[in-house]
């Protein structure tokens, strides 16, 4: 395969990765890793670098659409960023000792968890009584409704949410993906943040968390230009298209199909990692 053919195929794959990542809220990195490793036989350590680039591109690309609507809870995101960035630093240190098989198995497990969490009911968590700590940290907010008005929400479980975010950061540092699933477990499951707010805030955090380990990955040579270039451009345009489509499209069916697809990829990853095929 020539460089030209590889670059063009990767550009198209990255576009689709950005599109799917934005529509499902999982980020472009989740799709980029299996495309590179299973599709092209690329070493996981290069794929992680590409996933980091994809995560930042998805976050900033679709983020420009979300912030304007005032859905993202910047205070909540910023507070939890302390946990995810510390986690990402630790994750980037751990990653050096992990071989391809270990990374494949960890990635597969995160995918299975992601598929499971996609099945949950999307809740607005009406009538949640916030905790005192959340109040003092000024984490309560409002979010826009369909009719243009703003609805106030409270939240709780600050300590639990913060702990899960540490783990989310570690996984982000190891895998390069935003580990959106753990962010949603923390915000939606533990802290009872309305679904739309937790999705957009998670998207905001994904970019910042990825930045915490990105420079280290450049210095180590994981982010290699021949892969980074088509991934950056493709994912960016995919994410922009996705953010635009998300407002008009009913993505329930797409999410269901995507769910089955990531389960298949997950079992494949774990199996090949376990038998040492990578």
């Amino acid at each position: 395969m020539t460089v030209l053919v590889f670059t063009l195929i990767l550009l198209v794959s990255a576009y689709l990765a950005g599109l799917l990542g934005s529509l499902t809220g999982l980020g472009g990195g989740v799709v980029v890793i299996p495309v590179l490793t299973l599709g092209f036989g690329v070493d996981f350590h290069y794929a992680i670098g590409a996933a980091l680039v994809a995560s930042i591109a998805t976050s900033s690309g679709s983020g420009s659409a979300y912030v304007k609507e005032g859905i993202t809870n910047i205070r909540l995101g910023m507070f939890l960023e302390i946990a995810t960035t510390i986690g990402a630093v630790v994750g980037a240190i751990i990653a050096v000792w992990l071989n391809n098989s270990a990374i494949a198995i960890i990635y597969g497990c995160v995918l299975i968890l992601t598929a499971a969490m996609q099945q949950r009911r999307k809740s607005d968590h009406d009538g949640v009584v916030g905790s005192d700590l959340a109040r003092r940290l000024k984490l309560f907010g409002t979010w826009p409704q369909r009719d243009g008005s703003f609805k106030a929400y409270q939240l709780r479980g600050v300590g639990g949410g913060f702990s899960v975010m540490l783990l989310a950061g570690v996984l982000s540092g190891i895998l390069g993906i935003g580990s959106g699933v753990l962010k949603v477990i923390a915000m939606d499951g533990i802290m009872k943040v309305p679904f739309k707010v937790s999705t957009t805030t998670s998207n905001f955090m994904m970019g910042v968390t990825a930045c915490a380990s990105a420079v280290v990955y450049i210095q180590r040579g994981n982010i290699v230009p021949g892969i980074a270039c088509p991934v950056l451009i493709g994912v960016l345009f995919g994410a922009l298209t996705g953010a635009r489509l998300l407002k008009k499209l009913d993505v329930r069916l797409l999410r269901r199909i995507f769910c089955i697809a990531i389960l298949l990829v997950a079992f494949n990853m774990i199996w090949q990692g376990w038998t040492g095929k990578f």
Partner: protein
Amino acid sequence: MKIQILISQTLRIGVSIACVIAAVGGVIYLVSHGGDPMPDYTHFSYTDAHPAEYTTLGGIFGGLGRMDARSWIQLGVIALILTPILRVLLSLVDFLKERDWLYAAITSIVLAIIIGNSLA
């Protein structure tokens, strides 16, 4: 609400710049190496020396003048990384303006972790 529009524009301009720079590198890369066989990405080692043209700031800036494709692409990646960091910086300015010292401190901690880990 003003700051949110500023943030939204920062993100858009940031990713556009990153995209254009990376595209310049991509075009140079394809023109000069498009016909070559695909490089071997099947094995990565932390102990191997990786070319400075894409791993160090000095190497990247040094390669720009020579129109080194790797350096241009990597500059695009750096622009992409700087975008969310700039966004956090804007939030810090906003918190300071609101005299929200708690969140100014929290935002500073996040920035310190990112910058500290990048320079270490």
